[in-house]
């Protein structure tokens, strides 16, 4: 559905209004999605403030230091590794769909290409592993 919207054929491209319409719609949704629940929640939830309630929630344990403390760099490394593979997964889907084509004539090449891509990521992952990025202690 989304794919078809962005790959309109050449004939359908008119002025800026029509061409960028899907983008506009996307923008509206992107803004509305986080803002709407907040506004709705403001009206729906009951208002009851207290000292304990304003305290940051850390799995039920009392916070020991301020929130602006320095975290160990390992969190970031794990986060980055997660991000890389997360984005990779998102990348795999459009790749597969586009290179599927109409007659599946190009799939083998596309598959090899994707394997190389994943291979490079795996090498990087292995490098990070080997260098001790995943060891916590």
């Amino acid at each position: 559905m989304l794919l078809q919207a962005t790959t309109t054929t050449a004939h359908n491209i008119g002025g800026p209004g029509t061409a960028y319409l899907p983008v506009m719609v996307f923008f509206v949704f992107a803004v509305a999605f986080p803002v709407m629940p907040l506004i709705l929640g403001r009206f729906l939830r009951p208002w009851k403030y207290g000292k304990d309630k304003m305290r940051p929630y850390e799995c039920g344990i009392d916070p020991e230091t301020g929130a602006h403390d320095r975290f160990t760099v390992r969190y970031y490394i794990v986060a980055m590794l997660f991000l890389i593979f997360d984005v990779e997964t998102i990348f795999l889907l459009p790749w597969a769909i586009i290179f599927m084509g109409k007659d599946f004539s190009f799939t083998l090449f596309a598959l090899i290409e994707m394997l190389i891509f994943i291979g490079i990521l795996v090498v990087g992952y292995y490098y990070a592993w080997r260098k001790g990025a995943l060891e916590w202690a």
Partner: protein
Amino acid sequence: MSLIALQATNPDINLTLIAPELIIGIAGVLVMMIDAFARRGQRWLTGGLSIVALIAAGGASIWLGAGWRGARSAFNGMIVLDDLRLSFTLIFVVVSILTILIAAAWIDIEKLPAGEFHALLLFATCGMMLMASAGDLVIVFLGLEILSIATYVMAGFRRTDVRSNESSLKYFILGSFASAFLLYGIALIYGATATATLPGTTNIATIAGRLNHSLYPPLLLAGAAMLLVGFGFKIATAPFHVWTPDVYEGAPTPVTAFMAAGPKAAGFASFMRVFVFGFPIATAAASTAGYTHKSWLGTLAIMAALTMSVGNIVAIVQNNVKRMLAYSSIAHAGYALVGFVAAGAATDAEQRSAALTSVAFYLLTYAVMNMGAFAIVTLIARGNDRRTAVEDYNGIGFLSPVLAFSLSLFLLSLLGMPLTAGFMGKVMVFTTAVRQGYLWLVVIGVLNTAVSAYYYLRLIIVMFFRERNTPWDAPRLPVSVALALVITIAGVFYLGLFPGRVLNAFGAHPSISLSIR
């Protein structure tokens, strides 16, 4: 669906055309793996492999040039092959090899992980090569990011040093800023080149063909301006140069040498490709294309004059050698811009090719003499970049004659004294500029050269004409750095006395505007 599907079924794949990039990329991954597994003596292993890969990549690009069958493109015009690309690829190879040789001593002193450094360097080189071979704005951006991210890390390679951290962070933030400008420019150009029947394009040659059919000329101009700012940041032209001195001063010296020579040249390669071929000189000056061309050319000429003047004048008051060389590198970007302006103003392919060749030659000469100077600055600075003040060079002339005389040679070459590479580089650039009628720009350049004499000579004076009061223990000259010095000194004289062969090679395959179907 159909547009993308059409390209997907015919991707115009030609792996031989990206052989140098492939070699460097694969070698980078290999070096990374070796670094992960090897234990002792790995410096020579990864360094050696890197140098072999770089030489192979250089050989591959020479081979591409030798088997010449006219300017070509592949991957639907995303990668092009012409002398602009080939000459710059060779410059990158030279720069990276010299960086490895210079860095060897430094890695030893500082006890840094060599493998990581070599892998990053190879990835950066791969990015630079992509920038030079890009026929499409997207590839330009891709190459730029590969290069930049590797360089950000290299700038902060001395993790325990605050100055290095500061340098890395500044470079990262301002570099990202520049990248954002560039990306925004690309997006605007894409939008502006859409016609009634066709979607926009990022292909440089196609952009040139669409200029007069643009539905939104202001958008086009805004996009070009964004690109100008983005590239201006990357090659550190005034008024976008302010980050350079801090970053160059704080970064480890071999990395500074690399940044001043390599990424700057890569920036020039893309910058010239995009503007000279993407927004070329137009026959009708009143058209959109003509207006765009006139705007960027005029802006660039002023930027060139400004860059030369700011770089040289501010360099005079510097008391730190690295900082002085940083400003000198700004000034040299200005001289190279003079040739760029000439290339932009050239009306026929032959003159354009000559101008592009002169810029490539200039950047090669700059790379050689700059790397040489930094090699010596690295040695004298010792561990932790301690001795980089001008006073640290007091009276060392006859105490470490080899270093001091070599440094003097490089400084004189940077100044543009005859018999050295710097002189020939300037002659070539100025010649093409005079040919296009930019006499005023050349006069400014020449006057700036005179200004630059003051600070280049200052270091020579300090080394030779002053007496040293404090004890001096001459640094040991490691084999690798000695080799780098031999290469750079030979290069300075060879390019200064017999530039003919290199010039002919650089100008053998004139770039024509490549248009795709």
